[in-house]
């Protein structure tokens, strides 16, 4: 675990991704206020909901942690120091679970602070006692955690960095939507991004699963991906 933490802290990628995530959150949270008019709780929520969307950055970071080691061949050194590959994978999962918490919490602070500033500047009001707002924030943090773990598992499973990152982003941006139309709404809401949107209370997740079931579904995906990753990791030849 400590080795994996040091690996993360000695490159700039996590900070770049974290910064990019904050930019998305700030823009997302300010958006409803810029449009003027009345700002209802739903708008504040949807602003805060962008925090969940940044799970995409946590996902990419997770993929980079494993597939990036194959890309840069550092995995050779990693396994020379720890030939028990299961332990390496477990350490990466643990560290990125924490990184996911970090992305989620930092994102939550950014989203709420941005909203607070926007409220002050525009003389509009936000309902801070809105329970749904806080459930949105909590769901968004959890979404980051789930996608961070899924990213590690996916990176370990695919191995090829370019394929893993483009595959994951293409899935989220395109494939899941197309597949959703083929499968119909009832089945589509069980797909990863739809489940994430439901967990993070995104408008896109409306009509989908409840937050609790969505969390369960994502945990299921994380477990299945991890099990597959463990199986593949032990057999892979590092050439």
């Amino acid at each position: 675990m400590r080795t994996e933490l040091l690996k993360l802290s000695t490159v700039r990628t996590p900070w770049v991704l974290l910064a990019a995530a904050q930019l998305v959150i700030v823009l997302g949270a300010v958006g409803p206020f810029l449009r003027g008019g009345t700002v209802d709780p739903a708008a504040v929520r949807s602003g805060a909901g962008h925090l969940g969307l940044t799970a995409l950055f946590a996902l990419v970071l997770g993929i980079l942690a494993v597939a990036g080691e194959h890309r840069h061949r550092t995995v050779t050194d990693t396994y020379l120091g720890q030939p028990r590959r299961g332990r390496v994978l477990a350490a990466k999962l643990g560290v990125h679970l924490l990184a996911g918490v970090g992305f989620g919490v930092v994102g939550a602070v950014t989203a709420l602070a941005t909203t607070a500033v926007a409220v002050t500047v525009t003389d509009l009001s936000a309902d801070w006692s809105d329970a749904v707002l806080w459930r949105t924030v909590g769901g968004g943090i959890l979404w980051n955690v789930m996608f961070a773990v899924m990213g590690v598992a996916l990176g370990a499973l695919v191995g090829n960095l370019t394929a893993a990152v483009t595959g994951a982003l293409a899935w989220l941006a395109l494939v899941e939507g197309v597949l959703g139309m083929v499968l119909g709404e009832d089945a589509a809401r069980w797909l990863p991004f739809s489940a994430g949107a439901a967990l993070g209370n995104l408008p896109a997740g409306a009509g989908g699963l409840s937050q609790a079931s969505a969390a369960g579904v994502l945990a299921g995906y994380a477990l299945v991906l991890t099990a597959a990753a463990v199986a593949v990791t032990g057999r892979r030849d590092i050439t």
Partner: protein
Amino acid sequence: MNTTGIAVRGLTKRFGAVTAVRDLTFDVPAGAVTGFLGPNGAGKSTTLRMVLGLVRPTSGEALVGGRRFADLPQPRRTVGAVLEATGFHPGRRGRDHLRVVARSAGLPARRVEEVLERVGLTDAAHRRVRGYSLGMRQRLGLAAALLGDPQVLVLDEPGNGLDPAGTAWLRALLRGLAAEGRTVVYSSHILSEVAKTVDHLVVVNAGRLGYAGPLTGLTGLTSATESLEAAFLRLTEHV
């Protein structure tokens, strides 16, 4: 302790339809420098990677000091390896790379400065690996291999990219390590340099063993460059 040689027994590796290594059996003795020679594609790297537990043999086994690599309690303290000059994250600083390796092996941080000094990289240690020349990457790889003060060194073309002074430095380093009783095996295509450096030779061709034994056993009593080249070409002309 003079017993930590490498024993390769009936080692075979197939990648799909291609048999990279066929039934290789040889010993690498301790207290000597062993040259590992063969044409491109002869299976040298695959064999070294099987010794290091990175590639799973189809059959047979490779033992280091009587144990499989994965069963070594502290691999970095037993075996140091340089496999390719590209196994670094380009955005990580040289010193940080060694800190990661040291941390993963549970080695004290002061070893980082010691090996930097030994390979002559102290002045460049604060720079990111992206800006390193090939020779500097080779030195960084060697530094990582030496971190754990290992009894066994496995080096895949460590001389590539070194300038004449670096080549002489590497020769002295390898001779010195063997004189301390360590096991040193390295692959190379530069036969004139091999003839000046090694005591022992293993030659493979098309995945099969061509020769294993003392240098003088192959070249006769005169271990001149010409005769090693002539012997090598004779051994490897038939595929």
